[in-house]
């Protein structure tokens, strides 16, 4: 029964652009996929491993800027630029992680905010990469997959974003079922007890950070090629880091589908308020987010996914229990 429902949903997602040909519905779905994959990537580090990073926009921005600069200066296809962006994001994430993972809990989060601000300020003042003016992605016509630009329709962007989401979910699922996944959860629970059992805590945290950063950077490249203009304010801001966290927490951290569910609720909400209230939508949706977070925190800390499971009258499974049950099937 569940399998059939999942298949129907998958089919619906795959044919969506064929049915809805107008740009706005496609844009909404693309944003859901993008935020879903960013939140899923964040979830690997924060939801499973328990390290709440509030500076993930750093990796998003690195992805966006790296591929764009390589298009501008080396005429390199964004597909390769994407890989370079991910690689650079990993390197930066390890450099940040080395000092910052010695901190625990709130102090870790604050330190990540600090690094986020540092990176944004550097980029803001670095003229060679555009500084405050930002960068325009050189327009290439006609539409081409190689150049990762489509001006006639959003359909191909839709499928690329879907692919990105699938990659993030796949990575999460793979980790969840591996030794690393178990180690992450143990570290989240009690990293000292984990160390007493031989877990190399620092190394595992850095691994979680690396995967999370790489996937986030891929999203950054996608964003650059989608909107064709990037600047520090749009790809490096603290508000983006917090939004990524919000989406994941709303949906349910530490679960596979939670972050996507969060995106599926928050993105339409955000776009909806903007449509209803014109330019002032940006502030109101933050008010609604705040209210939603309070409701979630008080009534359902497990997030929307916890709510869904309650409604389906099934006990909430831990990620490991589900992996166990699935591999036994």
């Amino acid at each position, binding site marked *: 029964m569940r399998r059939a429902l999942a298949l129907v949903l998958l089919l619906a997602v795959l044919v969506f652009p064929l049915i809805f040909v107008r740009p706005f519905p496609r844009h909404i779905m693309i944003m859901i996929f993008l935020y879903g994959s960013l939140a899923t990537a964040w979830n690997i580090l924060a939801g499973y491993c328990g390290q709440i990073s509030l500076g993930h926009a750093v990796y998003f921005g690195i992805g966006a800027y790296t591929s764009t600069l390589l298009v501008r200066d080396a005429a390199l296809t964004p597909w390769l630029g994407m890989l370079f962006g991910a690689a650079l994001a990993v390197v930066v994430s390890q450099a940040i992680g080395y000092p910052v993972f010695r901190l625990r809990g709130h102090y870790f989060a604050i330190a990540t905010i600090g690094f986020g601000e540092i990176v944004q300020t550097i980029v803001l003042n670095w003229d060679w990469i555009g500084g405050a003016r930002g960068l325009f992605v050189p327009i290439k016509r006609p539409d081409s997959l190689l150049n990762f630009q489509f001006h006639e329709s959003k359909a191909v962007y839709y499928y690329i974003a879907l692919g990105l989401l699938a990659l993030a979910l796949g990575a999460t699922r793979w980790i969840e*079922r*591996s*030794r690393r996944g*178990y*180690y992450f*959860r*143990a570290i989240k*629970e*009690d990293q*000292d*007890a*984990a*160390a*007493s*059992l*031989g*877990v*190399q*805590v620092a190394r595992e945290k850095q691994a979680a950070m690396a995967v999370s950063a790489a996937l986030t950077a891929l999203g950054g490249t996608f964003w650059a090629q989608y909107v064709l203009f990037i600047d520090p304010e749009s790809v490096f801001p603290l508000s983006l880091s917090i939004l990524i966290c919000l989406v994941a927490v709303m949906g349910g951290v530490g679960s596979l589908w939670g972050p996507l569910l969060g995106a599926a609720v928050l993105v339409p909400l955000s776009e909806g308020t903007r449509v209803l209230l014109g330019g002032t939508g940006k502030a109101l949706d933050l008010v609604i987010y705040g209210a939603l977070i309070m409701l979630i925190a008080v009534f359902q800390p497990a997030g929307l996914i916890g709510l869904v499971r309650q409604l389906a009258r099934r006990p909430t499974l*831990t990620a*490991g*229990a589900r992996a*166990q049950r699935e*591999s036994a099937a």
Partner: protein
Amino acid sequence: MSVTEPHPASLLEVTGLTKSFGGVVANRDIAFAVRPGELVGVIGPNGAGKSTLFDLITGFTRPDAGQVRLDGHDVTGLRPDRICRLGLGRTFQKLRPFHDMTALENVMIGAFLHTADVAEARAVAIDALAKVGLADRAAAHARGLSTGQRKRLELARALATRPRLLLLDEVTGGVDPGAIPGLVALVRELHGRGLALIVIEHNMRVIMDIAQRVLALQLGEVIADGPPAEIMRDRRVIDAYLGEAWRA
């Protein structure tokens, strides 16, 4: 550490171990040795420095002075995960189960030290849970277990790392009197299979039952080191800890 090297006389050798926290000297010049397969009891009043000693040996705290040698190799100040991999396991006085993970998953974390394969780790974990009598609670979340069950869980978890020396911190603390004999029998069985143990205990009957040697600590110093019967009659130990009412 290859298999062909000769076994040193001591499995664990502690010399001159000293640690202060601010103005308080928690451990002063602690020295003792544990031979392979030996079961050593550690007794002393609260605040004597017993748990600190465990923390120093297992790398949770860095000593101010002194050395810890495992198999003749200096392991002083190494990180806890490194020391675990060298064959030294421990349990905690204040139990630290992974609450939101099942008993099985808890033990798997220990089992993963020797395998990256999830199925294999699961099999090892089931085995370890069976050994401590928790097989029927494998799918239960750790937060739902009783104190006695949590003690067993922590034991199984440490055992899954295949230690050669296991440090037990008050394994009978907070356990129903009726459940203690079972736990003691378990420890005795593990010892019988060749596992060396250092056991911090407040329950003297347990100490008399299983310890081959007893270390008595007071105010951070070793005040006695010898067979249980001798220690129980030691004047210093009686004054510091046991009290006159104790009859061995």
